[in-house]
């Protein structure tokens, strides 16, 4: 079997040593690990077609993997099989300045793409915190969000066309550079965020927009979480849609300060990072207004970042929040609970109560502007008793999020980690429809099996925290 793959991709692109199997047995999700049987680095769509055909015939699972930064165990090969890498498919193929699109192979690093288009005066807005490491293919598969989601949306809002190898080993082209296209079912949208369960994405065309001329950043510190949450609501109510409105609680501020040493006030209960882009005048007006609103809502300090460097440092700090938090305890479990932004204050409060109730350390940061919060539980996977409490607390957090009109994941995807909770969000009818779709496209269940669809759904709780 190994030999057939070897003849497809070449000897240097097949990995099967023990060290390699271990090195591709994980992603950034805590507490998930499983060994693959083989790691392949194909060089073209055609090679992927040939690989998939063998896998379909022999019923071998395929797990496509970018840089393995995802946080819902979406790229852990829990059923064994092949981990498919894109390190040999990382070319930027075409920049189309007339249609404002860029066409890339899936292995391009998000930051490299962003830098490339910006050097051409264009802008690709999705900016997941892992953008220095993550690949575009991974972003499309997970429908990644980022710090600019509030104003510019997420990855799906920029995907114009895809080349996909189906689980039967056929090549399918979806979408195109055109602005309008309503021919049939929107299969393009179905594939974006499908987490590698419906096919292998081998080419991506993305929409670009003009690069905003100016941007400015404001920072506000608060004595209470409620004041920060009120500020978020008030900014939106004042009809400002900032590009970024990021929130960090006290625990997160302390952790980021430990890493960056940039002088964040450890005593502050919450901080908001507010950024606006656009033309000079509008940016200036909006940022001043946001600073004023923060002050009106009890900010102990609200100021303009002194320079672009300072604002970059603050954003880098925010992007590092999750990893920085992990300094405190051996295991870090991050959640992705998302609510309508009007419910942010309630959600943050509920998280605090749940942490208290279960005697756990949970810090929260996230994209306050779009309601996407990241409650992060600091624990120790070796302490089984505590891990049981963690699981209970996370269940309660999902429960509250759904009751507030929210969801179990805003930008990380379901993967294997959140699969048992998906039915809470979708209901039985939704789950059945999704299962039917998966089965009709991938009847042999070879594409990233075990992800999105859990064997069993968690029983919903009767008693819960929050309201």
């Amino acid at each position, binding site marked *: 079997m190994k030999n057939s793959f070897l003849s497809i991709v070449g000897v240097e692109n097949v990995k099967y*040593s023990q*060290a390699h199997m*271990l090195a591709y*047995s994980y992603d*950034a999700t805590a507490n998930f690990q499983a060994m693959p049987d083989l790691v392949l680095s194909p060089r073209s769509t055609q090679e992927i077609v040939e690989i998939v055909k063998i896998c379909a015939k022999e019923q071998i699972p395929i797990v496509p993997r970018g840089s*393995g930064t995802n946080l819902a165990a979406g790229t852990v090969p829990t059923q064994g099989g092949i981990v498919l890498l894109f390190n040999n498919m990382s070319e930027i193929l075409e920049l189309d300045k007339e249609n404002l699109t860029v066409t890339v192979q899936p292995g391009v690093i998000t930051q490299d793409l962003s830098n490339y288009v910006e050097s051409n005066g264009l802008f690709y807005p999705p900016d997941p915190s892992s953008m220095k490491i993550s690949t575009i293919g991974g972003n499309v598969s997970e429908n990644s969000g980022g710090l600019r989601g509030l104003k510019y949306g997420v990855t799906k809002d920029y995907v114009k066309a895809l080349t996909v190898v189906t689980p039967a080993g056929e090549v399918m082209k979806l979408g195109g550079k055109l602005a309008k296209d309503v021919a049939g079912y929107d299969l393009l949208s179905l594939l974006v965020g499908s987490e590698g369960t419906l096919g292998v994405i081998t080419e991506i065309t993305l929409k670009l927009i003009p690069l905003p001329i100016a941007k400015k950043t404001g920072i506000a510190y608060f004595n209470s979480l409620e004041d920060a949450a009120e500020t978020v609501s008030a900014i939106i109510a004042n009809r400002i849609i900032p590009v970024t409105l990021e929130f960090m609680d006290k625990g997160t501020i302390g952790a980021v300060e430990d890493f960056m040493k940039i002088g964040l006030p450890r005593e502050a209960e919450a901080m908001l990072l507010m950024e606006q882009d656009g033309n000079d005048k509008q940016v200036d007006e909006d940022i001043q207004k946001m600073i004023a609103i923060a002050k009106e809502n009890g900010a102990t300090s609200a100021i303009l970042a002194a320079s672009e460097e300072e604002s970059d440092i603050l954003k880098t700090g925010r992007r590092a929040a*999750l*990893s*920085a938090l992990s300094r405190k305890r051996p295991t870090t479990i991050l959640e992705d609970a998302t609510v309508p932004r009007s419910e942010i204050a309630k959600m943050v409060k509920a998280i605090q109560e749940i942490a208290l109730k279960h005697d756990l350390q949970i810090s929260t940061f996230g994209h306050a502007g779009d309601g996407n919060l990241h409650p992060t539980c600091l624990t120790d996977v070796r302490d089984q008793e505590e891990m049981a409490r963690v699981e209970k607390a996370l269940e309660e957090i999902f429960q509250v999020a759904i009751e507030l009109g929210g969801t179990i994941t805003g930008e990380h995807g379901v993967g294997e980690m959140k699969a048992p909770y998906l039915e809470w969000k979708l209901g039985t009818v939704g789950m059945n429809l999704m299962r039917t779709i998966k089965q009709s496209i991938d009847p042999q269940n070879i594409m990233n099996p075990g992800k999105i669809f859990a064997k069993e759904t968690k029983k919903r709780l009767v008693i819960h925290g929050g309201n």
Partner: protein
Amino acid sequence: MVVTELQQRMQESFKDNVDEEYLMDCMRCGFCLPACPTYLVTNKDEIHSPRGRIALMKGMRDGDVVWDGSVEESFDMCLGCRACEPACPAGVQYGVLLEETRVAIEQVKTKSVVEKAVRKSTFDGVFADQKKMAGAVKLVQFYQKSGLQTVTRKIGFLNLFPPFMKEMEAVLPAIESKKKRATPSEPKTTTVAFFTGCLMDTLFQETNRKTIELLESLGVDVMIPKEQQCCGALHGHSGELEKGLRNARTNVDAFDSDSFDFIVNNAGGCGAFLSEYEKHLQSDTAYAEKTTRFSRKMIDISSLLVKLGLNERLKEIQVESKAIVTYQDSCHLRNVNKVFLEPRTLLQDAPGFEYKELIDAGSCCGSAGIYNILQPEMAKKILDLKMKGVKELQPAKVVTSNPGCLMQMQVGIQREGLEKEMQAVHIVDFLYDAIYKNQN
């Protein structure tokens, strides 16, 4: 799978030597990946990344993998440049983990004849004893002076050695005999003890002489404690930590005096290990206090020169800027001791030159102690990547802060056939020439 006795002992050794708590600090976020030179030059191979290596360390400890060539290769390939540490938001102490891993391996592994020979002659031989080092250098000196160098180069004697050794031989500096120092005139305001370093005091004697002269010209009284030895970094980074610490204790004793303000060193690699004596000897009650004093006084030459106001003096020398000068960071100076602004400050003010930043100046050049001898292929790839940036910039001088980097960059320049256009120099030599050649 049959687990051999060696594999079992190796796992035990990992359990005994590699700290589980440090391993648990890694949350696998991958922020280290773009910072790791070996990950980048291997077309993003996860086993050659810090995250992958930590997973393997944990795998070894937990018994999820057994010791084999593939696991060994992953650890061997690591440069130990520690660029992953500043990039890691989770604060993983990768340097400690790597040292512990190498100790774990060293205690169990049977080594090849060649590696044994290299280790024996380096760790127990020249690098353990300053006199032996001096002796070895005398031999090189004789070899250079006697005309043997020219002869051996001609008859291809060196073809018998691995290719990298040959290239290294070609860039060995011409060794000068120890000269009497010029008598300094200014009144002394600061007293420093000079950590001369074993390579720096022999192969790069000239640089040490200039270091002392520069310091003296800035009003510094320079003392050289005689009992000092090799810093022990090479031992520590190769799994021979105990031997390294033997040197550490000798050095702490040699420098244990109230009569100086700083202990200065001019080799980035040594400087990092010297400043980490504190960490290594903290549980040694006889040495903890002395070592803390020692490490706190440690300063690298660039930082000290800036502190003493050398850059102000450089500014006073008016010479038209013509050539480009650039800087290749010493990984350990940058990533461990966090010194990267000071050398740049000095170079920006150097008369006669325009400073331009080298692309990825902070990434390793591939020298990394004796890495370029043990892993010549990988070292070559890393150096080739580095030289791409150098060729783009076309500097007249590539300034470095560590003897290993200096020789490595010189090898790179020679390999590209650029030795007529540019030169790799130690920062002290560069500054010395910038002052004295332009002043008189």
